[in-house]
């Protein structure tokens, strides 16, 4: 079922882009407040200040952009993490990004009484970056530098450490639990466009570098020794790849909170469809990640209207059946 030739892969990529745009459009049209495509068009061409128009321009448009950007970041970071650790179970959270962000936010809520989403954004980005850098340093320590095994184990241990601090604070402070429970489940609702625009530069830099290092990631996936033998500066490449993951996953968690799952399953789904060549895999995963998160966000509005479900819950609900189907088709080894 994997696509073999480049022409078809390009078609596949374009097809995915169209689906993403379609879903983003649906994300703008569909929701609790009844609107039609005409209303949406009018909201942009002929804005009259009505409730529907404001919702479309201020709320849903932003949400669609945020969901697609965050989904793309997580999926691309996931591909890079899985190549870097050579482990199909790796995801950006293995670098401690989510655990670090969660810890930073809970500390902010508990000790500094901060509770607005704007502040959560940079706090979680800082937390994610600190955690990821510490994991990277621990993984690199020792004679032979960063090995996949050490990175994986250091990451898993550090993530557990931060998660346990978070749990401890939440057990002690029930009020904080109430405040951050929704944030900890991950959501793209209620974010201003400024939250996205403030991290967008990091995201864009991450996307560009990720695509730029894709050919080199192909070489790296053959193994460290072979890659070094072929003249690749593996240490430098791993450092850049690590930074890209921090940029992508850090800004994703800053905008939407810890949305798990996308970073781990989308790379597998993408790999089954478009193959293991990172030059195709990285952009394609990005598109698929965007599609899944936008779709999940639309679903999140409908499951229990008018109450919203955290988008992290919906990604699991929508993504799992598809993922299990894909997993059953392959991986026979």
């Amino acid at each position, binding site marked *: 079922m994997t696509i073999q030739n480049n022409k078809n892969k390009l078609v596949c990529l374009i097809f995915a882009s169209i689906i993403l745009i379609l879903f983003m459009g649906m994300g703008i049209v569909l929701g609790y407040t009844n609107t039609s495509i005409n209303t949406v068009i009018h909201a942009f061409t002929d804005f009259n200040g009505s409730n529907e128009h404001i919702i479309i321009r201020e709320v849903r448009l932003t949400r669609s952009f945020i969901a697609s950007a965050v989904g793309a970041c997580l999926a691309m970071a996931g591909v890079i993490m899985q190549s870097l650790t050579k*482990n*199909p*179970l*790796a995801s950006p959270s*293995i670098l401690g990004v989510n655990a670090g962000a969660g810890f930073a936010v809970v500390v902010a809520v508990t000790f500094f009484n901060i509770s607005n989403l704007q502040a959560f954004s940079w706090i979680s980005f800082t937390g994610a970056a600190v955690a990821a850098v510490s994991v990277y340093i*621990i993984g690199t*320590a*020792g*004679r*032979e530098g960063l*090995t996949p*095994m*050490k990175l*994986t*184990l*250091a990451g*898993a*241990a*550090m993530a*557990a*450490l931060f*998660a*346990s*601090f978070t*749990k*401890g604070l*939440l*057990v*002690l402070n*029930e009020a904080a*639990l*109430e405040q951050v*429970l*929704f944030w900890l*489940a991950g959501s793209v609702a209620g974010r201003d466009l400024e939250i996205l625009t403030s991290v967008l530069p990091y995201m864009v830099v991450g996307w560009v570098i990720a695509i730029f290092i894709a050919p080199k990631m192909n070489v790296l996936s053959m193994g460290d020794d072979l890659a070094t033998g072929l003249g690749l500066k593996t240490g430098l490449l791993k450092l850049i790849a690590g930074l890209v993951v921090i940029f992508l996953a850090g800004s994703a968690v800053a905008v939407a909170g810890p949305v*798990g*799952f996308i970073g*781990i*399953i989308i790379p*597998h789904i993408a790999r089954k469809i478009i193959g293991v060549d990172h030059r195709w895999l990285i952009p394609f995963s990005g598109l698929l990640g965007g599609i899944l998160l936008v779709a999940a966000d639309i679903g999140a509005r409908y499951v*229990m209207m008018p*109450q919203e*479900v*955290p988008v*992290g*819950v*919906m*990604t*699991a*609900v929508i*993504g*799992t059946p598809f*993922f*299990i189907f894909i*997993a*059953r088709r*392959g*991986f*026979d*080894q």
Partner: protein
Amino acid sequence: MRQYKSFRLFKGKISFLMDSRAVAITAVLMILTVAMIVGSTALGDMKINPLTIIHVLFGGGTELERLVVLDFRMPRIIVALFVGMSLAVAGGILQGIIRNPLASPDIIGITGGAGAFVVGFLAIFSTETDNTLTVSIGWLPVAAFIGATITAFLVYLLAWRGGVSPVRLVLIGIGISALMQAFTTMVMILGPIYRASQANIWITGTVNGSSWEDVAVLVPWAVLLLIVALMSARKVNVQELGDDLAAGIGSRVQLQRFFLLLVSTGLVGIAVAFAGGIGFVGLMAPHMARRLVGSAFGALLPASAFIGGMLVLLADLIGRTVFLPLEIPAGVFTAAIGAPYFIYLLFRTRNI
């Protein structure tokens, strides 16, 4: 040059190889565990002399000392010990059959399934007005155990396609685990905050309030399954070689894989039933053990068991002593004390 010792019992039905250094280290771990049991019994809100404890165990001591030692501390210490051992051994076996260092009871969905059933249980049987349940809280472990087993079987069935490959098993496990967590989060967010808080304590994992009734159910099963696990160490060694090689040296790969999964599910099931979703132990205790005694499972499993037992014991000790009068769930501290030690081990043994 290491000296290897081989153990062959029952005409080779049970056999494993241990090098003598590993035997020595395991012995040290065992002594440490015993010391920690005694120390843990002595410490707490009321400090008791270790000699008095021995006295109490043989029927002496004052009324109060007997109450504290026998009724409050001993049950939870025993539960903590066996829960830690079960989780660690289950994690070790899972890492062996899945051949992935990130494999753990959490990642293949067993813990997540138990968690989902527990929040479901709390939501269905709680009264809407206050924090009480319509049925006995004694059914909670049953719900957790059922959740763990059902999820494990579901993952296994979905991964079955003329056999179960490790990668497929673990990927489907991740999917199911995510679904279960999604359900858990939903119930927690929709319900009142006290229920979320109650569920959060369960998910974190605690041995607080363990009684002798818990011990009476947990210990026989844990001992039985731990012995079975230890006897199967050789099978795990073979599984770790990969399917082709394992089949080549005459092992019934799928049957043994099913059997080993059954054993680890049982171990995790009873552990989460009595202590909730204590994390880190199942994932990291085997890695710690591997750095101390090497990766042959005959030595690895007992060492993991002691490390796991000590981790939960120590975590519970810290949870009930350091922040007095507050009681912190043990699950908070397993990673807090385990992770730094593991990172130290990672630094020390660089060749991996």
